[in-house]
């Protein structure tokens, strides 16, 4: 079965990420991903939604090069992608600035430029004053912003995000949605954002892909701007068009989950 996963503008420069006929199983276990294909255009924001076990995190691990495909390919432009986790995973022996600087150092940025660049990146996520604070001195939302700055420090064309805001309270999550949208607009980075929160996907993404579970496949794609029509300017999660589209996608997701009840 092949589903049209949709396409975005900017095809002429080649995709930022390309997944072709990707299949993954761990050892002799069941199929996790079954013949997945996906192109992410440069600068595009794609959200993957699905129930547990749909392999969306596995897909990110494959794109990040942390896992090897069983067959098919998963490639990102530049060969390397930044990855953010649900937990900030800041290194606790380094300060906020030190975490960003380590990413810069490993990306080959010279010593002289590192400090200024790290300060700039922390400024981008509005944490100018947090340079010398250690992870345990930061709130959960601040930690995720440092993690975002660290991911941007890698200067990869693609940013992979694995439910990065799932552990945050609702107000902080809303603020970080706006922050992420702003940073994405300012940097032009491509984002592949995995979540089980449909409203989050509709609020953030240009394209939303729904995945089936066991095995993971794409079953439906939505072009969010087209679906929202003239309401696209208002992406607040509580706005009527966003809520309607979220309800549609949630309905489809429930259908998919019920399929497993038998």
């Amino acid at each position, binding site marked *: 079965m092949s589903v049209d996963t949709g396409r975005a503008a900017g095809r002429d420069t080649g995709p930022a990420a390309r997944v072709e006929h990707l299949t993954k199983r761990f050892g002799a276990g069941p199929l996790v991903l079954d013949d997945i294909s996906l192109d992410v255009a440069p600068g595009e*924001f794609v959200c993957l939604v699905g129930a547990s076990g749909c392999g969306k995190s596995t897909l990110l691990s494959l794109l*990040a*090069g*942390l896992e090897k495909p069983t067959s098919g390919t998963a490639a990102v432009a530049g060969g*390397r992608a*930044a*990855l953010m*986790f649900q*937990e900030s*995973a800041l*290194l*606790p*022996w*380094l300060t906020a600035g030190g975490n960003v600087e*380590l*990413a810069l*150092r*490993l*990306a080959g940025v010279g010593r002289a430029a590192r400090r200024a660049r790290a300060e700039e990146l922390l400024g981008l996520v*509005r*944490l100018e004053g947090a340079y010398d604070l*250690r*992870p*345990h*001195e*930061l*709130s*959960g*939302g*601040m930690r995720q912003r440092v993690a975002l700055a*660290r991911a941007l420090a*890698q200067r990869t064309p693609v940013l992979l995000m694995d439910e990065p805001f799932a552990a945050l309270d609702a*107000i*902080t999550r809303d*603020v970080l949605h*706006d*922050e992420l*949208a*702003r940073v*994405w*607009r300012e940097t032009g980075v491509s984002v592949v954002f995995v979540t089980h929160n449909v409203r989050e996907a509709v*609020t*953030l993404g*240009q394209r939303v892909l729904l995945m089936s579970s066991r095995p993971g496949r794409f079953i439906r794609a939505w072009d969010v*701007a087209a679906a929202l029509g003239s309401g*696209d*300017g208002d*992406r*607040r999660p509580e706005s009527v068009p966003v809520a309607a589209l979220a309800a549609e996608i949630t309905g489809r997701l429930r259908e998919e989950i019920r399929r497993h009840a038998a």
Partner: protein
Amino acid sequence: MPPEPRDDGSLLSLERGLDALDPPAVGRRPWGRRVAAAVLPPLVAAVLVLVVWQLLIWAEVKDRATFPSPADVAAALWDQWQQGTLQEAVWLSLSRGALGFAFSVLIGTPLGLVVARVRVLRTALAPVLSGLQSLPSVAWVPAGILWFGLSPATVYFVVLLGAVPSIANGTISGIDQVPPIYLRVGRVLGARGLAAARYVIMPAALPGYVGGLKQGWAFAWRSLMAAELITQSPRLGTGLGQLLDTGRQLFDVSLVFGMIIAILVVGVAVDRLVFSPLERGVLRRRGLLVD
């Protein structure tokens, strides 16, 4: 189409408000209170031991010639101090212990790193290292004497065999306890091979490693005393262990007790003044210690 920014001013102030309210409060008790809390309980415990000891003396449970009073022991220690032998013995033992410990760190650390990260070596050597750690290092003294004679080499040989396995095992368990998420972060950031070891694995393993060093010191000091106690020779000078054995030869029970106390005090002092602050500093910087 990207979502447009909403009323940015109010978002910014909302964010600043969250940043001010959310972070966990990190505060430490005042310096004086912390020192008092650290020093008073062990001091009280030491005084209680002295009191019980003195009560036993007054109860005359044992002959004074074989069971000295606190005052007898203090007099013996004072006597040694005035002759200068006590300071000399402490200095000699301490410098030997420090040198032996330093070599043990130089050998045990890379050994632990390699055994932890190379699967074949781990299967082969990890059981040997745990075995060596449970073997009392005094068992190596006869072999040391046969190989190196009554020389400092024998003493260092015994210290190394006591401390190296402990430090290597500490390194191994420190590395084993590194949360897998940090290894994933390292790989995502592009740290491979030596860079991963330097920037991720070793710093992440530091708390366990420092624990291993602390234990390594205890083993080094213990082994050194065992070696000094058994090896009497002019070539070796007079360390605390030798002074203890001198007490035995002279039937000077007060000196024997005095030396036991001196060995205990030096061992504890190094642990409290060097390794505990080191360990607590590492844990506090990571937010793993609240005080």
